[in-house]
């Protein structure tokens, strides 16, 4: 019976709900911008990790190397798009 009950997954599920609730703090209370952003970024990262490793079984796959590489590539493209856009359209825009 013990093996059948997916304790790890239930805990993970509760934990991910908790993370979502914590993220709500950022809008429910009157926090400073920096504090709100910190909470959002931290909970988002933990949440993403939880989903990938616990529910999407990244580690349990025989070809996890391909998957890590894929995640790395995704991070590269995502970060480049966001920071590149900020660079091109905010920090370096209409300046001499």
């Amino acid at each position, binding site marked *: 019976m013990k093996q059948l009950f997916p304790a790890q997954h239930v805990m993970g599920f509760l934990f991910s709900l908790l993370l979502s609730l914590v993220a709500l703090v950022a809008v429910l209370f009157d926090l400073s911008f920096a504090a709100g952003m910190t909470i959002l970024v931290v909970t988002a990262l933990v949440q993403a990790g939880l989903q990938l490793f616990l529910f999407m079984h990244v580690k349990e796959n025989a070809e996890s190397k391909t998957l890590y590489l894929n995640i790395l590539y995704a991070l590269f493209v995502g970060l480049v798009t966001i920071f590149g856009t900020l660079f*091109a359209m905010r920090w370096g*825009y209409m300046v*001499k």
Partner: protein
Amino acid sequence: MKWDEFFVTGEPMIYAAMVSIVVVSLAIPIALTYFKKWNWLWTNWLTTVDHKKIGVMYILAALLMLFRGGVDALLMRAQTAVPDNGLLDGQHYNEIFTTHGVIMILFMAMPFIIGLMNVVIPLQIGARDVAFPRLNAVSFWLFFSGAMLFNISFVIGGSPDAGWSAYFPLASLEFSPTVGNNYYAIALQIAGIGTLLTGINFLVTILKMRAPGMTLMKMPMFTWSVLITNVIIVFAFPVLTVALALMTLDRQFGTQFFAMQSGGMDMLWANLFWVWGHPEVYIVVLPAFGIYSEIISAFARKNLYGYKSMVVSMVAISLLSFVVWAHHFYTMGHGVMVNSVFSITTMAIAIPTGVKIFNWLFTLRKGKISFTTPMLYSLAFIPIFTIGGVTGVMLAMASADYQYHNTMFLVAHFHYVLIPGTVFAVIAGFHFWFPKVFGFRLNEKLGKWAFWFITVSFNVTFFPLFILGLNGMTRRMYTYSESTGYGALNMVSMVGALGLTVGFIILVYNIYYSVRYSPRDTNGDPWDARSLEWSTHSPVPEYNFALIPTVDRLDAHWFSKKEGKPLATGKYEPIHMPNNSGVPIIMGAAFFFWGFFMVFSWWIPAIVFGVVILGTLAYRTFEKDHGHYISVEEIERTEKALRGEQHEN
């Protein structure tokens, strides 16, 4: 929307188009009924999940779109052939260059490449189909409904007219009040989802379904190029999806993402568009590199020079392609820092590209070259593409770009990259793999005539544009006065465009001619080529390989021929294949109508078709479909027939 605005009126050319659309859409069902072909069409083609047939449908659609885009191009060239011409007015010219650009890139180049990918990849890696055959059919029908939706815009409601890049604020509701740009946003959205699904499908196929023994570094170069292309698709297309959704929200739901006031930012569209757009040009050019690699090594009778460096340079290109996008708008207000960074990254791409060019040259060195039609295109590609590349490096220098930006120089540059880089490649690939699909080659003599017409005329059409651009003729300019002196070179370009037309007509005629007169080939390997697709019969049976080949090195098929060792041995076993399904085409149709009503903001029918789309998804979720088995007897029968032996019973 008033009803009298529904159909585009007042243009004789458009009336002619309407008439021909009506005639064709009546003629097709009548012919099908008359020849009793409905059933055949439905069971063999419209509901198929066979990657080869889906590939053929992609390529047919792409040829159709090449024709449409080509007519647009001819009209533009005719309009600008002489000064102060009145063939097209400004509005009509705007619509035509917009549809030409969109159709050539998204509905001609993309499907042609995806079509070749479909036909070739499973065969080249020794698989029986793609990883998700049903999804593959969905991809095709989404692309097709997107393309059809985009094409009806010129008779119903009016075509988009803000350029293929649809920059804001011009593309906003305020400055483009017709439904044209709604068509742009929704049709590209639908086709884009199809492409994204293709990307995922082929990524999984190549990673998971290779024949035993085929490690990544033993894959044929075309498979490598397609793998990398699909990685780029999966990461670049979501940006387009989001940008188009924001465009729809802005134009139809009153948001202000790309507005010039209320905290919106018009330039953000250009930014997002090119974040997708630059990787997109590599999506259409990398598979072409793969095609050339296959053809050059097959007809030089040598293995590809510098295999590893080819792979590394493609990976490098795929990463670099994501960090160069701002070179499309150097002149739109960025500081020195931004322009310098993007100049340098852009020039850096020339390095891996140069590596590839040298590898092809070294592959040719001391080869026993046979000058077949596909090889001629590949050989012509090298110098012509190099001109495109060198002018690209000129454009990459931000400060110099202030001179070239938005001139005909740019138009010449990107045609010099896109036409040898994509169109020549897909034509070469089309000639090369045609016998695999249909069991006979295209006629070589006609093929060479078409080649010479196309290559020479291409240069006559586009080289003058470099000079016109340097002389100051801007792009998207519908007419000019005599005193500018642009007349003569534009006339030369028009002559070239006519030559191109002749070339393409010969090419299409060659298909008809070869169907009738070409000798059928018997051994499945008419070019004496190197990779696995040539080890099975032509035409390829439904299950591709009766026995899955085992691979121990690159070009395994070539060595198996040399050494007389078969790639596969053993006894036949029943083969599991997926069933056909009508759901993908129904889904495509639902997307088409959903899109159409969305374009016109007719919400109730749009919601109805939205529900139909969800319904097809739900149906699939609960459907029990385990595919079917092909029995050993049937395999034996098919194999015998394909080997040309007689039936026993």
